[in-house]
């Protein structure tokens, strides 16, 4: 479950979400009729109401979205009826939810995962929406919102880059410098270890954080195009390029925090917050764990160092969240209007006011109230040549959750067995990608 909450900011008490996840699993076991029954709310035939299926179950995003919908009602007179489900449960049930009686508009992720449901005919194209909002978005976001058929299916709202986080005061205290190249980075790790710090904080209990490390090393070493090929199942996992990625990873693995498979990302973030660790590779949502204002101001980040000068630091991993239109919305006209509103700088600004751990997907959004961290994240994305989503958002989720998550956990514990691991991944990949 929560099978692949990967790359997603799902803050808050993981225990509770998990418990609800278990509840969701039970509900799923009870069969399809029950599931579709909890989908639509039934009041949607009313032209003054649009229903929205939401996975924003955590307090901060939930309030942020409620603010947007309240403002929209004031503006248009259309009521937004939100059907919020636990973040992970929403993801687990999305399949049957979209086949049943889904809400008019639903929260989802950009890229491959959006394309998957678009290709299955479970979403309505929204080219007309993009006619009015298109100018608000940079080219990279437009590409992320299109399916393979060239039609638009997605309205992006916010995004967040992955980078290496550190405490400014720690770097100052020991006289560290931000490493620009791989060799500098390895040297810095060694120095930190000598200074009694854990060089790289790491927690992979939820099995997705390790995917972020893999992505960074892979596209720095082999470039964006190879990342796409590999994730789409076209490149082989036994390719020398993949082997190279794992070799580089093996080089820095001794500098990672011990016992990563038993630790959540929240606990790993605490080692950075308590200055026991020097660096931490994660999405900007790591800031949510810095509840102390002074510590938050002390937090900074840099892009993953360059490995191959041919690719430099041109690629940025930036998962993007937004909205899609379900296959047969009951109030299509109202839903289209709502999506047009959600693509405006106004809606973005309202969201960011309540949730400052992410940045706007739109290029016209007002960035004047951004924190220094947000400004830096925004610049990093704006300056990127290509944006990746995340391993499980750029590839088939069934492949990443059933094959890659356990495989990477195995690698972290036993990096020597990488050859047999890679051929096992390749064999499993073939069956999954040829199955459907």
């Amino acid at each position: 479950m929560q099978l692949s909450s990967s790359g997603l900011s799902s803050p808050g008490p993981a225990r509770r979400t998990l418990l609800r996840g278990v509840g969701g699993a039970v509900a799923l076991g009870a069969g399809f009729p029950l599931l579709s029954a909890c989908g639509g709310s039934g009041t949607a035939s009313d032209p003054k109401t649009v229903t929205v299926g939401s996975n924003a179950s955590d307090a901060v995003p939930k309030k942020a979205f409620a603010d947007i919908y309240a403002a929209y009602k004031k503006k248009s007179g259309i009521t937004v009826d939100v059907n919020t489900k636990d973040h992970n449960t929403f993801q687990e049930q999305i399949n049957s939810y979209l086949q049943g009686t889904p809400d008019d508009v639903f929260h989802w992720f950009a890229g491959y995962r959006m394309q998957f449901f678009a290709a299955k005919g479970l979403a309505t194209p929204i080219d007309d929406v993009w006619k009015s909002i298109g100018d608000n978005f940079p080219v990279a976001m437009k590409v992320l919102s299109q399916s393979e058929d060239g039609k638009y299916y997605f309205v992006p709202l916010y995004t967040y880059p992955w980078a290496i986080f550190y405490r400014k005061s720690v770097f100052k205290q020991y006289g560290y410098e931000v490493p620009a190249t791989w060799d500098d980075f390895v040297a810095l790790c060694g120095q930190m270890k000598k200074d009694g710090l854990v060089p790289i904080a790491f927690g992979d209990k939820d099995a997705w954080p390790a995917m972020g490390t893999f992505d960074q090393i892979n596209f720095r070493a082999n470039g964006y195009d190879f990342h796409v090929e590999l994730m789409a199942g076209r490149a082989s996992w036994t390719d020398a390029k993949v082997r190279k990625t794992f070799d580089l990873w093996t080089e820095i693995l001794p500098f990672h925090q011990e016992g990563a498979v038993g630790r959540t990302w929240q606990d790993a973030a605490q080692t950075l917050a308590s200055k026991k660790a020097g660096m931490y590779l994660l999405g900007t949502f790591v800031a949510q764990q810095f509840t102390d204002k002074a510590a938050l101001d002390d937090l900074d980040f840099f892009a993953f160092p360059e490995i191959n000068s041919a690719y430099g630091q041109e690629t940025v991993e930036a998962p993007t969240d937004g909205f899609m239109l379900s296959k047969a919305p009951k109030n299509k006209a109202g839903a289209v209007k709502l999506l047009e509103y959600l693509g405006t700088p106004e809606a973005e600004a309202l969201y960011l006011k309540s949730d400052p751990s992410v940045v706007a997907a739109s290029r016209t959004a007002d960035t004047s109230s951004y924190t220094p961290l947000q400004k830096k994240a925004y610049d990093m994305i704006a300056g990127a040549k290509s944006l990746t989503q995340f391993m499980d958002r750029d590839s088939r989720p069934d492949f990443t959750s059933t094959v890659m998550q356990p495989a990477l956990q195995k690698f972290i514990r036993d990096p020597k067995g990488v050859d047999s691991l890679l051929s096992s991944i390749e064999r499993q990949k073939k069956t999954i990608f040829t199955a459907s």
Partner: protein
Amino acid sequence: MTVTGNTGTGTGTGITSTPAATNPTPPPSGHSETTWAKGRGEQVPQGHRRLLTHRDRLTLGLMAGLPTILHIALVWVTALASIALAFTTWDGIGFDSIKWVGLDNFRELFTNNPQFWPAVQHNVIWLAVLILVPMPLGMFLAVQLDKKIRFSRVYQTAFFLPVVMSFAVIGFVWQLVYNPDTGLINSLIGANKPGHYIDWIGDPDLNLWAVLVAASWRHTGYLMILYLAGLKGVDPALREASALDGANEWQTFKNVIFPTLRPTNTIVLVVTIIEALRAFDLVFVFNKGAEGTELLSILVTNNIIGESSRIGYGSAIAVVLLLISLAVIIPYLVATFRKERRS
């Protein structure tokens, strides 16, 4: 064993009398007060007269029919559908995407899935540990508590407390104990520093045993109560007699008490087997079946639940779990039926 035979006929008469009992309107003319009384007492041959009215039949039909339909739809159809799906691939979107692949899923499972054989092994270990640890321990605790020692109620409550909690909650509680950075054990023994670090949750050589401690902790309390109930049923005269014969405490237990606990032992064994086969929630909460704690039930869930599910493949794993369950249950059922037939 003759008792079981009697219960059979007992339920039989129960059924015939129930519709009449639930029917508030007086029975039609043919059935006078006398039939009522007779019906309740011993069965008097009714000759060719119809025992059941139209209404009775309808009630009976509904009472027997509805559960049957529900049972068939929810148990048999789903089970058979899942077996059929094990020979297909299906992503769960629309029925037209179901593709027949024969034995491919099983071939893939047996040869290509690095988690499958560990999962089978862990399920077997789980069963063995639950039989070897909580069963003797539960019996031991029950025997001690049966001696009417002081604060017996307090101990009973303490041992039984984990049983009233769900496994999900137990998973959270034990995570707090096992958390490698801030958990109780590592904080006490100082094993949360680099260099000497014990990763109870992440280390595949440790985590299964860590979870099994939690599982046994709960199961022991459950079995203790079952054994305690069994011991309360032992005739005090037997103890007295063995005391008069000069048997010591161990001899009394071995030769007198333990043999009378036979029915309890059967129940305990069945309960334990069921518990071991359905092991899921504790591990799912603990670490989602990461390396070292893979279980078949978790593999099924991981493959079936999700945004683009491998329903065929997951069903194939479920079929394997079903076969293992049958392999354990069928010998038991055969033995039980054979005993019944003999008596």
